């Protein structure tokens, strides 16, 4: 397979009193095998909805259009029985809140073997061996004992390792990790990021985060989302040193730099449009220092890795 996944013109919308409103507004994205791409963007920009629809597990009220191609299967239109065979097997997902994301009344082992046995015709015993193997691989100490534990008996960090083990257990080609460290405290965060950086085997990683530093740390590519669109994407070094989109620039200068004597935080003033708000032209225009008449007249297309009429050049000050 040439690509791990290919997303074409993905639109995700929800019903509102005024008809369907899109929260993901025509995204194109290709992830190659072994690729590590970070999706960064403010809260509500549609990162999670994009991730969920890649597995076809968006909320039932959501309407998904476009194409999400995994091999020759289009996850948007494939029958559930077909999509199901890929979920947890070819593509898997790690969620933000590991405690609530594991079934509270079932042991770690039973939840992991359920997934192995669903996608492989192997015996219970072989499945348990696989569970033990993957728990060991994600760095869970005393994995044999932990297998028999219930989620509430583990610490937050171990639970997230279990979630990652669950995502990896069938050797997927792509793992979508949705803010996997947000619910954890700082030292544990670093450990989980280490695991994401070097413990994912051959799987490609799509890491959803609102933290550019985390993105730069774990991934080699960054896609910046704003109000349902990818507004810029490129290699990490390129995005960090030479961001073209005014929003990316804003995000970068919002990162506190403790080694420099300057005011720590410089967030972008204003807020993104709400999902029902009708915006003419560029959705960032109301907050953009570079906006002009052209920007409010029509919406910029995504060309040369950026969706902006006036891409900025030069290093960030």
């Amino acid at each position, binding site marked *: 397979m040439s690509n791990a996944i290919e997303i074409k013109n993905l639109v995700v919308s929800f019903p509102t009193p005024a008809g369907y409103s899109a929260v993901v507004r025509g995204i194109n994205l290709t992830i190659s095998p072994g690729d590590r791409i970070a999706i960064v963007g403010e809260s509500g920009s549609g990162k999670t909805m994009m991730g969920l629809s890649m597995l076809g597990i968006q909320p039932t009220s959501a309407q998904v259009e476009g194409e999400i191609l995994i091999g020759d299967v289009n996850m948007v239109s494939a029958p559930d029985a077909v999509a199901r065979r890929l979920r947890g097997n070819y593509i898997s997902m790690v969620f933000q809140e590991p405690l609530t994301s594991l079934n509270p009344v079932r042991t770690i082992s039973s939840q992991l073997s359920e997934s192995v046995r669903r996608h492989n015709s192997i015996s219970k015993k072989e499945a348990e061996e696989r569970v033990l193997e993957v728990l060991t691989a994600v760095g869970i100490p005393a994995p044999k004992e932990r297998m028999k534990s219930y989620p*509430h008996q*583990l610490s937050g960090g171990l639970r997230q390792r279990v979630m990652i083990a669950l995502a990896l257990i069938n050797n997927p080609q792509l793992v979508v990790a949705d803010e996997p460290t947000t619910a954890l405290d700082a030292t544990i965060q670093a450990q989980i990021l280490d695991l994401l950086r070097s413990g994912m085997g051959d799987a490609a990683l799509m890491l959803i985060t609102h933290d550019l530093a985390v993105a730069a740390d774990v991934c080699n590519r960054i896609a910046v989302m704003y109000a349902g669109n990818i507004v810029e994407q490129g290699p990490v070094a390129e995005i960090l040193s030479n961001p073209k989109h005014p929003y990316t620039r804003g995000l970068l200068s919002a990162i506190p730099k403790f080694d420099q004597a300057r005011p720590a935080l410089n967030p972008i003033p204003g807020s993104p449009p709400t999902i029902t708000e009708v915006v003419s032209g560029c959705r960032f225009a109301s907050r953009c220092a570079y906006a002009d008449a052209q920007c409010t007249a029509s919406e910029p297309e995504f060309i040369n890795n950026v969706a902006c009429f006036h891409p900025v050049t030069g290093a960030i000050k």
Partner: protein
Amino acid sequence: MKAVGSRLLQLVVLLGTISTTLFLLLRLSGDPAILLAGEGAGPETIAAIRIEYGFDKSLTEQYLIFIWEIIRLDFGRSLVNSQPAFGFVLQYLPSTLHLTFLAIFFNSVIAIPAGVWLGAKPNQRRRQILSTIVSVTQGTPAYVIGLVLIQIFAVWLGWLPSIAGTGTWAWVLPVATLAFALAPNLIRVVAASIEDTTRQDYYRTAKANGAAPNILLIKHSLPNALLSTTSLLGAQFAFLLSGALITEFIFAWPGLGLILVQSITNLDFPTIQATVFVVAYLVFFVNLIMDQIFRFADPRLRRSQL
């Protein structure tokens, strides 16, 4: 152990309150000896009762004696048939247990699958069925259901007896009445719990791992939903034990509910008190058993092993 202790404390407080209330009720509502002697009793009878029951002693002394007696489960003799009240009431227990177990059984067998069916796929049609069930039955008291069942099956069709002890099938109508009275609530709660599980993160995780709808239902929704339904079942159980008063009365079912109604009608204080105590003990044991079931079924309540 801690749970047992706190249940025990609850029981003591409950029984203390009930017995003190009964004690005061009997003594403060006029001359208890006259009350107990009943209408038309001569002065000698009243005097004899006053001495037998110790009403001539001081109130404090009476209270202490009273408490000591109930600790020994000695509630005095029934005013109606002079049997020791406690033993008299106990005779009615098996009958109530019989009714309770059957009613809970049929209630669960009907309501749990129905609730699961309604909650598993909350589409328009199933929602309508659910809200119809709830709106029709919620306002219908058990005695109406009982009377309707009697009218149909005993009076019109003549298929089933309506009075206890009049044949092998005498249990059917009272059990059906209770099951019908309890089922709507159970259906509603099961359906809501099942539906709630589908919004949980672990459900989404299972989906993300390729679980098919039937697996989602059986392995992920059901265990969690049934767990949250257990407490309602426990409450329904306790409710039935505490005397399905009206149902037992309608069907002349010789259980705790019937004896309580009768003893209240007769102002048979010793029997009232003995019945209330038996019921309180039963509820105590049901709660204790429910606690254990919870502990067994919900790993979060077990002692953590790590």
